[in-house]
């Protein structure tokens, strides 16, 4: 209990608190604008957090994460264009309700559901993570190798329509991560004579290039092809009625647990959990209620919104306990932690208890603040939707350059960012998923390091892997998740 009190004191430090408010607001703006995703927002803001202390820096990123996952629903409801992929399902019923002139009601439900989802998942995180960390403390090199493979295979199989493309992008990420000094032997490899590559490719320029610069290029493309949206809805009273709250309460609770659970599986994300929660809610609904889904049912808004915000807490579980990111945003947060000198993993729960509990409390506070800011500022966030892409895209590009330069004050990093941005643009264009690349940048080196460390430990005996049940368990799931979709392709299709 003392720990939580101390943690709360840390979170209510005026500067940290203010930064959380700023982070949430920026996150909501980023989330609301179609084309700017949560990942992009967190990637662009990451360089800004270097100067801050560990907790403040992390809390800004977490606040942006929470804010943008919620913010996506604003444009999903008003424009039928989800601001983030996680809100795609929200537009099904949200937009229909808005069309009936009840945009404010839809927004109110979405705010309450998002906050409830975020809070429930944070509490699950607080309860589950320490237990899981105790188990993970027993993990050794072979288990970590299996976990890394598991995380990689899940993200590849879920993020792409083509398994070949998903694996290829993941492998490219691993190749980028191999440039530089080998951790086991200290030998430099793949620097191709370049001094700048001696210490490897920095994570953040790659990230900003893939998730922000490439997106800005896609926005330019959309401007040139004449795709524009406009919003003309007036939002008034957004506080939901007691009757509505009673209707959606069971939906929110169920969806929050679904979201937390799915979020905790490495590689999944808000879009998948929102989709599953929506389907489950529909399945649980009474017959006459079922027919109204897709025509503006409030439960159809509550389910995806509770689930996608619940994913945030869920995704933090593997990040903090195992050092494995749950999705691309938590991959960036992992990068931020490492840069601050904190290595996430089970040891964190013994060595850095205060920081950990400050993060937990910060997440609760951030969710509550989200409620306040969203209700107070909803009209402002609706106005943000009318900002023209023509002004936004150049600004993002400048921020990409400044952000990637700021890390090491090095123009070479900016070059990496530009190169990866163009590569990311083509990946996007040719239907390659981007998130496996980022996850592979983190899990690839982990897989190689732990694989080789295992063999050094066993003096070259491969039995060290096969004698570990945990290794066999995770490896089987990893293999299944890659092979099943391929087998499915060869099976006769259902008519």
């Amino acid at each position, binding site marked *: 209990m003392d720990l939580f009190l101390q943690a709360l004191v840390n979170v209510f430090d005026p500067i940290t608190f203010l930064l959380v408010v700023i982070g949430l607001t920026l996150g909501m703006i980023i989330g609301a604008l179609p084309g700017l995703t949560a990942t992009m927002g967190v990637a662009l803001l990451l360089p*800004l957090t*270097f*100067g801050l202390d560990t907790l403040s820096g992390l809390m800004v990123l977490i606040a942006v994460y929470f804010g943008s996952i919620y913010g996506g629903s604003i444009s999903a409801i008003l424009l039928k264009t989800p601001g983030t992929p996680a809100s795609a399902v929200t537009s099904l019923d949200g937009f229909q309700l808005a069309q009936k002139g009840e945009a404010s009601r839809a927004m109110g439900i979405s705010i309450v559901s998002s906050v409830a989802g975020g809070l429930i998942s944070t509490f699950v995180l607080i309860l589950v993570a320490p237990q899981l960390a105790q188990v993970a403390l027993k993990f050794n090199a072979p288990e970590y190798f299996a976990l890394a493979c598991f995380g990689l295979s899940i993200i590849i199989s879920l993020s792409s329509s*083509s398994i*070949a*493309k998903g*694996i*290829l992008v993941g*492998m*490219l990420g*691993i*190749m980028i991560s*191999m440039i530089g000094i*080998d951790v*086991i*032997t200290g*030998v430099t*490899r*793949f620097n191709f004579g370049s001094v700048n590559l001696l210490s490897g490719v920095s994570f953040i320029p790659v990230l900003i290039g893939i998730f922000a*610069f490439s997106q800005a*290029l*896609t926005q*330019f*493309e*959309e*401007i*040139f*092809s004449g795709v524009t949206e406009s919003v003309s809805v007036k939002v008034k009273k957004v506080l939901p009625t007691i009757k509505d709250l009673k209707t959606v309460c069971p939906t929110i609770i169920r969806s929050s647990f679904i979201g937390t659970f799915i979020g905790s599986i490495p590689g999944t994300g808000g879009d998948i959990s929102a989709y599953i929660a929506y389907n489950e809610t529909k399945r649980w609904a009474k017959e006459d209620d079922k027919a109204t889904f897709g025509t503006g049912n409030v439960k159809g808004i509550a389910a995806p919104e509770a689930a996608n915000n619940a994913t945030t807490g869920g995704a933090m579980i593997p990040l903090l306990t195992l050092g494995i990111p749950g999705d691309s945003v938590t991959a960036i947060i992992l990068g931020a932690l490492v840069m601050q000198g904190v290595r996430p993993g089970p040891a964190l729960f013994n060595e850095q208890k205060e920081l950990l509990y400050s993060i937990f409390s910060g997440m609760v506070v951030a969710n509550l603040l989200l409620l306040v800011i969203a209700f107070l500022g909803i009209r402002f966030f609706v106005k943000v939707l009318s900002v023209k892409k*023509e*002004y936004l*895209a*150049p*600004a993002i*590009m*400048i*921020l990409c*350059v*400044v952000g990637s*330069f*700021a890390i090491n*004050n090095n*123009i070479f990093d*900016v*070059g990496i960012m*530009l190169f990866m*941005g*163009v590569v990311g*643009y*083509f990946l996007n*264009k*040719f239907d390659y998923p981007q998130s496996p690349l980022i996850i592979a940048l983190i899990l690839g080196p982990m897989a*190689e390091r732990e*694989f*080789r460390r295992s*063999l*050094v430990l*066993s*003096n*070259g*005996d491969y039995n060290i892997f096969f004698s570990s049940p945990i290794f066999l368990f995770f490896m089987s799931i990893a293999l299944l998740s890659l092979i099943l979709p391929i087998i499915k392709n060869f099976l006769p299709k259902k008519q």
Partner: protein
Amino acid sequence: MKIGNIIFSAFIFLVGLLFFVTALSFGPGSSGDVGVGFFPKIISLFVMALSVIIIIQEIKKNDKEILLTDSSKKALVVAFAMIVYVILMNILGFVIMTPVVVAFMLYFVGERNKSKLVLIPVGLTALVYVCFVIGLNVRLPMSFLGI
């Protein structure tokens, strides 16, 4: 998008080949370690195999062959402008080059209002300067003029 995809996959194949050939020269590991080259070799073999699979898949498709649409060509012009901007920024400095490139981008997307073409680039540069240079102590490239 058939041709574009094939060219892209071929490029990835070459990158894989480069890594594979480079990894061949790495020595073996000692005391149980599989060595520096073990993982790179496996990964680059996968990369080469997968890019060949994707190329074959693409050849089988009977899509329309558009290499790049007009709007994506224009987007690449913007990317090129950004590359030139970064090179020149290193010589002429952030404060001078940023308004220039932002004004170019605005003009390129069709903004013709003169006051907007001046105010938005200057305003954006000022905002970034205040946030990063004054607020966060980032040392952005300066020109010989000292700005």
